[in-house]
């Protein structure tokens, strides 16, 4: 008979207790506040229960923010994965060991930049008159002006480009390293069967990397939910409300415009519930 050790309990209980306090206290507090009508400018408050939640569904800016958040999530996650896989495979196929190391170093730099710094750098790059990113357009059109951050049709994509620039390149390095860890035999077997390069990756290497790639996608999905700083610096949710995501709108309601912290908390609680449900469903679907 094996003696039960108290070691796991000794290590796990304090850690879990701290984690529980750190995660549950703010969460419960946010839920409590969401059921009240607290505002920054007044100390008094009362319980309004689900009134804040009901108001959200008739608030056009909230509904717009939900739609913008969904678009942002899809655009950034899909584009990041496409760029990561594309560049990773390209480096694997076309670059020798030295060049691979060089590219890896180069591609890691953007993600090392603080988010706010990256946002400022790109904000200047997008300047319609002086920006380096808009320079080719001015050159081709003979000086016509293009201001991607002030056009509702392009603003979201312009900001998403910065997100993909940071994360897509970083993920490309991870994809390359994953490809390098694969056993060579299946790839050689495919080559002997005269499979083309793209077929080798489409039918052999990438299916073998399904699990880590799905994990990467989930990491990016969570990261994309937290793009507040990027959007805040580059557009503040504008032009109009074209890039106003849920977190941006919640912050705006809580701290910029009206100081409605309860209303903002209601949004945060809804976001949390929606995120948990969506991610659980997706995770189960992927596991199945």
């Amino acid at each position, binding site marked *: 008979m094996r003696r039960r050790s108290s070691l796991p309990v000794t290590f796990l209980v304090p850690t879990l207790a701290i984690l529980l306090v750190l995660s549950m206290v703010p969460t419960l507090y946010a839920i409590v506040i969401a059921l009240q009508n607290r505002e*920054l*400018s*007044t100390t008094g408050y009362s319980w309004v229960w689900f009134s804040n939640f009901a108001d959200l569904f008739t608030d056009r*800016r909230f509904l717009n923010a939900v739609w913008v958040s969904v678009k942002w999530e899809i655009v950034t996650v899909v584009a990041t994965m496409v760029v990561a896989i594309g560049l990773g495979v390209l480096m694997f196929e076309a670059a020798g060991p030295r060049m691979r190391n060089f590219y890896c170093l180069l591609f890691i730099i953007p993600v090392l930049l603080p988010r706010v710094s990256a946002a400022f750098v790109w904000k200047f790059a997008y*300047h*319609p*008159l002086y920006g380096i990113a808009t320079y080719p357009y001015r050159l081709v059109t003979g*000086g016509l*002006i293009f*201001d991607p*951050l*002030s*056009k*509702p049709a392009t603003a979201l994509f312009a900001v998403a480009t910065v997100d993909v620039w940071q994360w897509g390149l970083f993920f490309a390095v991870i994809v390359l390293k994953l490809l390098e860890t694969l056993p060579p035999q299946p790839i050689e077997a495919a080559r002997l069967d005269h499979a083309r390069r793209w077929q080798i990756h489409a039918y052999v290497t990438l299916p073998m990397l399904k699990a880590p790639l799905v994990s990467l996608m989930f990491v990016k999905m969570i990261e994309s939910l937290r793009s507040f700083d990027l959007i805040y610096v580059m*557009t*503040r949710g*504008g*032009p*109009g*409300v*074209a890039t106003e995501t849920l977190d941006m709108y919640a912050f705006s309601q809580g*701290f*910029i*415009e*009206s*100081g409605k912290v309860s209303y903002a908390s209601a949004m945060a609680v809804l976001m949390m519930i929606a995120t948990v449900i969506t991610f659980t469903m997706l995770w189960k679907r992927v596991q199945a």
Partner: protein
Amino acid sequence: MNSNRLAASLGAAFVLTASVSTAALAQAPVCSAPVKVLAQPRDGLTLLEDSKDEFKKLSGASFQIDYLNENDRRAKSRADASTVGNYNVYYVDEANVALFASSGWIVPLTDYYPADYDYADFDPGRQKVATYDGKVWFAPLTGGGDLMVYRKDVLEAAGIQPPKTLDELIADVPKLTNADKGMYGIALRGARGSGANVWRWMPFFKAYGGKWFDGDKPAFNSDAAVKATETYLKLFKDSAPGTQTGSWDESTGAFLSGQVAILVESTPLSGMAVDPKTSQVVGKVGFLPPPSPLPGGGYGHGLAIGTKANADDAAKKCAGLFIAWATSKESEKRRLGAHQFGELNRTSILTSKEFADIYGADLGKALADTGKVTAVNFWQDPRWPDLGDRWGIILEELVTGTRTDIKGGLNELEAYANELVKKK
């Protein structure tokens, strides 16, 4: 006899000890910890940081200024003052002084502003903006009204006289735009915010006879607001690139780099326009009051004493001393010496010979003339930032074409205003 001598000696010792203590107390430093300030970038404050040692000598402690741009500063100071109260001194402005004062986030300034620093010397207009509910809440760092700043060379080349009326301005602006040569008729503010796009829109609203409230009843949803918005959007067609989602920095930056023919903006622009360090159009610029009937947007920014971070009277006195020193005549003289036009607020400095020598008679006259048409255009109420920011979002949507229904936007704002009134 001995006992008398002893009593006399003790008495003398007591008097001596008391006088030494009093002297020590008189020289005791006013501040026991560095003063923490939350502000937005200002040349005057940057210059002030060069004199940290002077303040340390005066008060016994140094100071630390955290800078955030205008909109971020407003959001952060509101969040900080209403919750943790990390800052001893807040940079406040005309748009949020009512909110800060009525919420108890700042304390009346003159209770802690040393008399030697002569608060009455500040420009009376700025004192008025710093006053809410009969009490003074901040010491001005900047302020004034609007001026029309225009490119003499560009207007002359186009054969156009500087517009004296709003109708002339509307007619002239498209004629002055020559996008192929990088010249735009005007620069406006498109970025959301009661102190951003709404600030520049309000003179049009007032010029067409608009008013915000009639008692407790919103009165802004009117023909005046529709006409003002239509005019604003029409002028925006000739506004410099980057201003559609930009504010003061973008519009003045476009003018100072030579891309704009006419700009109606807050008075500090005029000082920047004649300064070779900031302007590429020095010597080509003229100044006039805003075209009639546009009123100038009276404003003032300054430093106020935070309530939470200054828990006791000693801390408040320290913050008061910092504000007094930062806005003193000596500090303003240094700013004048550094040609920081927009940072001058004291009558004694604005009317000094040194000022006239540096900036000339034209600008002085334009400033005097614009003073006559400067007005408070916003709703002077703690709920103004809330209402103004809401209109700012709708206006930004209209400017960038995300929405096109002006009346629908005003209806939405009116519904929101009614909610605000109900909550009072």
